[in-house]
């Protein structure tokens, strides 16, 4: 198994009230899967995605990613795993403003093994060209449409060649046409062997995946 979650519990402590976010969650995801996590807001789907992305730690339970027990690692090692193994795609793109598409895509490379600047540029340009942004590499996010911005973000997620992409509502800020483009792109990437886990609340979007996990009140249904 590529991802193995066993008996994961997570509680958020909010001013004297404890809010359980995940209750005894166990999931297996194989390499090359395309999974959509669905559920209403507050169902725990974002918490699950944050755990999968090594941005958060469970209160109890175990998480194996690519054979590594992640829940016991220090913050520097987790940063390394995020950098090498995971590509993040966000709802609001999270591109650096007033920074060119090319430089945005290069960003994860700064935190990986040292590369020459020419090589960094080369990798970013190859990806952008592949995603149909060859003409817009020097554009700033403000000069790009939503769909284009999300493609820059996907290029950034791919630049370190991670085996896993985690997407949090990747089409939430896009019109239906751009959303469809992005999902087609995801499907293509998945076909090439990249594991994709995506959080969404739109059934239209979820139908692009091969498997849907539905969550309710912090548990998988």
């Amino acid at each position, binding site marked *: 198994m590529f991802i193995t979650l066993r008996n994961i519990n997570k509680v958020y402590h909010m001013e004297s009230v404890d809010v359980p976010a995940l209750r005894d969650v166990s999931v297996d995801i194989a390499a090359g899967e395309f999974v959509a996590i669905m559920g209403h807001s507050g169902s725990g789907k974002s918490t699950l995605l944050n755990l999968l992305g090594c941005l958060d730690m469970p209160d109890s339970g175990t998480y194996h990613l690519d054979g590594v027990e992640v829940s016991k690692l220090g913050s520097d090692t987790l940063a390394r795993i995020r*950098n090498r193994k995971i590509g993040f795609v*966000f709802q609001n793109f999270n591109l650096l403003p007033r920074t060119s598409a090319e430089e945005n895509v290069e960003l994860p490379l700064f935190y990986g093994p*040292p590369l020459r600047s020419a090589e960094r540029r080369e990798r970013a340009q190859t990806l952008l060209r592949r995603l149909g942004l060859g003409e817009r590499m020097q554009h700033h996010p403000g000069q790009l449409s939503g769909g284009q911005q999300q493609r820059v973000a996907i290029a950034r997620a791919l630049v370190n060649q991670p085996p896993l992409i985690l997407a949090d509502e990747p089409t939430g800020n896009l019109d239906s046409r751009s959303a469809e483009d992005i999902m087609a792109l995801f499907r293509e990437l998945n076909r090439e062997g990249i594991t994709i886990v995506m959080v969404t609340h739109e059934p239209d979007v979820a139908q692009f995946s091969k498997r849907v996990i539905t969550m309710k009140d912090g548990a998988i249904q």
Partner: protein
Amino acid sequence: MNAMITIKMAMCALARNKGRSLLTALGIIIGIAAVIAVIAVGQGASVNMGDQISSMGNNLLMVFPGSQNAGGFRGGMGTQQTLTVEDGEAILNECRFTLAMTPLIRSGGQCIYRDKDWSTQTQGVNLQYPEVRSWKVASGEFFTETDIKNAARVCLLGQTVAEALFEGEDPVGQTIRIRNMPFRVIGVMEPKGSTAWGQDQDDTIIAPWMTVRRVLQRSKFSNVDQLLFSLSSMDNLPVVKDDVTGILRQRHRISENEDDDFTIMDMTEVTKMITQVSRLMTILLTVIASISLLVGGIGIMNIMLVAVTERTREIGLRLALGARQHDIMMQFLIESAVLSGVGGIIGIGLGIAAANILASANNWPVLISPVAVILALTFSAGVGIFFGFYPAWRAARLNPIESLRRE
């Protein structure tokens, strides 16, 4: 992450907010500029003062007639009229560290050339005066031994007097009147500038001492106002002072329980005073520098805290993309160090410019010491790191999930 990339990234981040970065760095810029300018001017001025002191003459020793004690009444310095040219010659012969000697007899009075007049002092001296004062003749000739012996009515003008009376005309060969006595101008001295205490050394007329005594003072006494010696080196000053005291006491027949009737002075007193003043100035400067850098540093800390808040999302993103806490910390530390370092560089430039303007307005030499420049640069970058530490630490400790969610 490598340092060059981090520095480049910091530059880009600062360039995105040019106006704000400049305003933030302004505290550092002004502080460093002030320090550099004042140090440069201060050093220039103190070197200038040193020059002025040595312009009095190399290794100068002055002997004045002392005060007179008569029946309990004590007169001021110079009231006793015992010092003579012969005393000077005796000292020159007997004390082996004296190189040259000139007597000085002063006479004030009006001098006139055609329709112009000027009130100045005429100094009666001997042939060794140019050597003692290290003061050369610019045009014409110095007078001769015969001129002294004959009390010839010849004189040399200081630059100030030459300009006042002749206004560009060549004075050499002309005749002026000093206290209504005709004198032939045989030369003009080189410009010498003012003394450390602001007296214009060029505002003077130089004549043979015998002439001043006989023609201007019409005196029958043989006393002089001052004896000037140049010494081979200042190191022997105590020995020379002892020698001079011994010779003069013997020549003046002063018994052991009597006070000296002369006073010996040298330039070490003046030098000591100037050193004290410049030390005080250095302390003052350090205080000013510290305060301005402190204020500048607080400004940097303030704006870096704002930047951390503004860029919370960016920090969250970088953490998600694989930045370690250490990387985030370094990013903000280097950003504040670059901010204040660049501020320091601009400040140094402005300071040098200001020093040059001030110096050229006052005719000072400018001395920019490389030590001061390097120190200023190190200090400004240090201030950035020190005051950037807390904002950087806050940035590094941000929670990536909450930061990414921040609008």
